[in-house]
């Protein structure tokens, strides 16, 4: 494991993401905003964005285990925290947050789950790292950093107190 971004750098990246989000939402005149993090790394980033953007609705947390497309191949994932969306999704402008955008399959699963709670007005995707290797037609609206890694190389966010990016 090699640390490629320390916690200080990551906090700066998140602050920049918050600025970009503010502009993004303002340009589109989006109000009535809620923020949802995908377990587990996405929740850590979403918590920080939630504070920085001073969002009124409580933070939403999504565990996409029941929406994965690899269930029949690898079965149930050991359970993490349950999903918790403590607000009405219907008509909200949602900011969806994840740590790493890789194949895009997690985002597909997350969107499917969000729509089972209601019909949001819009979904904005914010990710800390964009690997640029999507297998599905998703593009992040707000990106902390882009990173191209060789095949077999993985990047991982560790936390929750001090966030660091490591490769293995």
């Amino acid at each position: 494991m090699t640390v490629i971004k320390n916690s200080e750098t990551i906090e700066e990246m998140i602050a920049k993401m918050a600025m970009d989000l503010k502009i993004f939402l303002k340009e589109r005149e989006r109000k009535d905003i809620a923020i949802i993090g995908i377990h587990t790394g996405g929740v850590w980033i979403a918590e920080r964005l939630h504070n920085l953007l001073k969002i009124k609705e409580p933070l939403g947390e999504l565990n996409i285990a029941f929406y994965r497309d690899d269930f029949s191949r690898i079965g149930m994932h050991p359970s993490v925290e349950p999903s918790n969306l403590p607000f009405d999704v219907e008509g909200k402008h949602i900011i969806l947050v994840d740590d790493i955008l890789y194949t895009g399959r997690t985002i597909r699963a997350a969107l499917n789950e969000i729509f089972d709670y209601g019909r949001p007005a819009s979904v904005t995707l914010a990710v800390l790292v964009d690997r640029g290797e999507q297998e599905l037609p998703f593009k992040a609206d707000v990106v902390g950093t882009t990173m191209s890694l060789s095949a077999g190389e993985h990047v991982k966010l560790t936390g929750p107190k001090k966030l660091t990016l490591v490769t293995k």
Partner: protein
Amino acid sequence: MITAEKLPENIQVNKKGRLKHFLTTEGLSRQLLTEILDTAENFAGVGERAVKKVPLLRGKTIANLFFEPSTRTRTTFELAAKRLSADVLNINIESSATKKGESLQDTLQTLESMHCDMFVVRHANSGAAHFIASMVSPGIRVINAGDGRHAHPTQAMLDAFTIRRHRGRFSGLKIAIVGDIMHSRVARSEIHAFNTLGVKELRVIAPKTLIPAYMQALGVKVFHDLEAGLRGVDAVIMLRLQNERMQGTLLPSADEFFKMYGLTEERLAHADPEVMVLHPGPINRGVEIDSEVADGPRSVILEQVSYGIAIRMAVMSMCMGSAE
């Protein structure tokens, strides 16, 4: 070194120790039982959402094989399967081909040809679910929804789930099971589950004629006096007096039973002030439980029903998601 071949065969788990069939709580590890409870925790909120479904078992077919009548258990299994997006077949065997002389094996083979992926089995004979699990093709999963006097593992787990949701743990808890222990598959599954999950003290309370002799060997304290048995308990699980199973000689009458063992507010006062009252249903008001208790503030009977769906979703998805 212990190799896989030398370990005692357990049909319920695969080589990696993951749940494959769910037939009994007996012999399963604390880790596995806890995993069932944790997974159910994730499913507990699904019923409150706009879309009460997750796509986990989309494209799978689950057959409910009920050789014995049951409304509540069958309905909650059906709902659990549907909330997992599976297709469900309800087969009432009593009124089907077996009556025409078809053997069990032929019935199962017919259903396998229809590409069913899971059988949920309720049968009057002890061991029926094990028998079916040993007979089906390798890809098919079996869940026991009650077999004779032997086991009813999902009921035991939903009771455990209800208790954990209220108390958050099992250590330090005293739990009493009251009623017809002799004929109860629920009691047997509960005793194994609660022992494994590590409750402080497990009690059974019933007349001598309704307690099997081997109870003490299972580490259970036996009481014949209800008030003494209830003293200080954190949870009371009432069992239904099974009229249809009862031989005339075991009890004088239902009235007599209520006088001795019926749960009333007055008797419940001997338990812990925070006591929870559970009952697998359907309840016989005025036989094993007084209406005042069943509808009272200590009762969690209706919660049990909705938690039963979450537990069944957990078990179904865990079994279906485990490879050979």
